[in-house]
């Protein structure tokens, strides 16, 4: 029976709450409604409204109380309903969630998982299609994960909840309906390992979250043109698996980073910089970036022109190969 990524994450929440009575799930509309994407569906029915509950409409409140709950000894999973609505919680995330364990010399642990559906491609209105990952990945003290497959949706969510470090768990919302035939539960590679999703020899596409699938489609299209494309799924954005990135580069000599977030200071900048820092002599071409533009996220009717797609990536492959 096929499972979607949304269902896989739901199953992970279910199983984690079953496995550990300290796990709590809360946020806006996650209880009776089961979340606006139904990712928390059934949790309140199964675990009661003390373990899965709705909060008042206040994201800083959600994050700050999650910190207090964690200090007490619970393992909170807090949902930010959409990417763009994680910003009111920025202060609590950056000044406390990320820093309090360090501030306390490790005496305070904050095993908080922050679930954030993110990214575009679903025709939503403004503030519902943001890609805030660079804000979090620049912030020391946070771990940042994002699954590109339903399997990882399950396994990485379990890992995030088990982690004693705070984890920003970015769910690629346009892939909630992506299917897999895998049986759950499933355990994939640890999150800090990037995984080669497709082998290839000419060029490496480095992607994560929603763009993993787009990269795979591009690789197939390129194959028709006789180009052998490797696809690396980063999975964890903080830490970044630099050694694996370098291995890939050594194989193909060419890398292209793909993400939806704006180009300037997006993840592509860090990946490219690390590659040239540590594998300088292996670069046969500059590391290229195929990303969102340096503009606010566009309205629904124009998002297809903004988002990286197969054609734009194919062009970049051509450019890379032309070096």
């Amino acid at each position: 029976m096929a499972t979607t990524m949304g269902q896989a994450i739901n199953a992970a929440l279910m199983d984690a709450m079953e496995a550990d009575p300290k796990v709590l799930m809360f946020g806006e509309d996650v209880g009776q409604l089961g979340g606006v994407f139904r990712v928390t569906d059934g949790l309140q029915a199964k675990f009661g409204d003390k373990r899965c509950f709705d909060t008042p409409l206040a994201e800083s409140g959600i994050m700050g109380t999650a910190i207090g709950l964690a200090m007490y000894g619970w393992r909170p999973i807090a949902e930010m309903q959409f990417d763009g609505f994680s910003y009111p919680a920025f202060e609590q995330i950056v000044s406390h969630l990320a820093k309090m364990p360090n501030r306390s010399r490790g005496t305070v642990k904050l095993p908080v998982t922050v679930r954030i559906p993110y990214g575009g491609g679903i025709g939503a209105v403004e503030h519902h299609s943001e890609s805030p990952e660079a804000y979090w990945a620049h912030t020391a003290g946070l771990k940042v994960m994002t699954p590109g497959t339903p399997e990882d949706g399950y396994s990485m969510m379990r890992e995030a909840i088990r982690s004693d470090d705070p984890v920003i768990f970015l769910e690629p919302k346009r892939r909630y309906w992506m299917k897999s035939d895998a049986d759950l539960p499933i355990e994939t590679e640890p999150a800090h390992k990037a995984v080669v999703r497709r082998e290839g020899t000419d060029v490496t596409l480095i992607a994560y979250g929603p763009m993993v699938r787009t990269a795979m489609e591009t690789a197939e299209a390129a194959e028709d043109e006789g180009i052998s494309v490797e696809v690396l799924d980063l999975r964890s954005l903080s830490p970044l698996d630099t050694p694996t990135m370098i291995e890939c580069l050594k194989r193909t000599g060419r890398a292209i980073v793909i993400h939806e977030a704006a180009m300037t200071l997006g993840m592509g900048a860090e990946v490219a910089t690390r590659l040239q820092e540590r594998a300088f002599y292996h670069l046969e071409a500059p590391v290229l970036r195929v990303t969102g533009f340096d503009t606010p996220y566009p309205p629904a009717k124009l998002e297809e022109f903004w988002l990286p797609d197969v054609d734009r990536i194919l062009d970049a492959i051509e450019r890379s190969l032309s070096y």
Partner: protein
Amino acid sequence: MNSNVSEAIALLPPNEPVHLLDPDGTYHEDPEHPLDLDEAQLRELYRLMVVTRKVDREAINLQRQGQLGVYASCMGQEAAQVASAYALKTEDWIFPSYRELGAALVRNVDAVGLLQLYRGTWLSDHNPYEHNFALMAIPIGTQALHATGFAMGARFDDNPLVSMVYFGDGGTSEGDPHEAMTFAGVFKSPVVFFVQNNQYAISVPLDRQTAAPTLAHKAIGYGIPGYRCDGNDVLATYAVTRRAVERARSGEGPAFIEALTYRMEAHTTSDDPTRYRTQEELDEAAKTDPIARMRNFLTQRDLYDDALENEIEQQAKDTATTVRAGIYDAPHGDPMELFDHVYVDPTGYFEGQRELLAAELEGGDA
């Protein structure tokens, strides 16, 4: 701080929300809330509500037909919106959330433009300075600060205008309206905080939103008077708002109004309200419908007849038809516009990105 603590109690809301019109149209005079509306204005309020409902319904249809990505209906809240906006002067500013079609229509904001946000041709499509109607704000409660800053600005400029900001029961929990009311109180800014308490924030009912006796009890914490009205009673809402607006205009400072109403439709067209509320509850709420109530009142006063009904129906239909046509005809927009408004002076930006997109649009390689 007002050192006279015992006088402070005047900032508290009344025990019962102000209510002038019964569902059957019976009008209760209230000397504290006299009506300064003539017959034409009474009919106008009714007309605006009917047109609002019609256009709202059309928007839902357009969404079902795939013409809008999503839509947030104001059905059931017409009185609250129309009456409050009607209590303003045209030079006053409105800062809406995403649900204020009724207030927009009072201001003659073109609904076709307004709905472009939901259609996704652009992030907005009206010039706020044309109708003194700010852009719709999606991040909950954030616009309360813009309204407050605007009102501060008017006062610094000795300009006797008032700004009014709409947000919901859920919005009262966010930090921004709290900070806005704090600033408004301190700077005595002419801003009216108009809260449509429609009982839900998506699926979350009021008692999960706050333990306050009423939302209007929040106002005293900012030194602001808290008012309450039956938000499905167009006359009560008008009277209460009018008083608050003129009080603000005269320099007496901000006010907070809680209008009790009910969201008859889903939160948005993406929502499934059967998951969190019952048909019985809906049926009960329908009995307090603001439009029927006003029609009953007009009928009792001999201000309503078939001719008026036909005229208004026709006008509502025409408006809806225009909206429908306008939406269907709206061009999807020019992708190159993505780069046009990010900066007034874009020197140094978009190097290569603009060219890349232009090349793609020409079908060439980048």
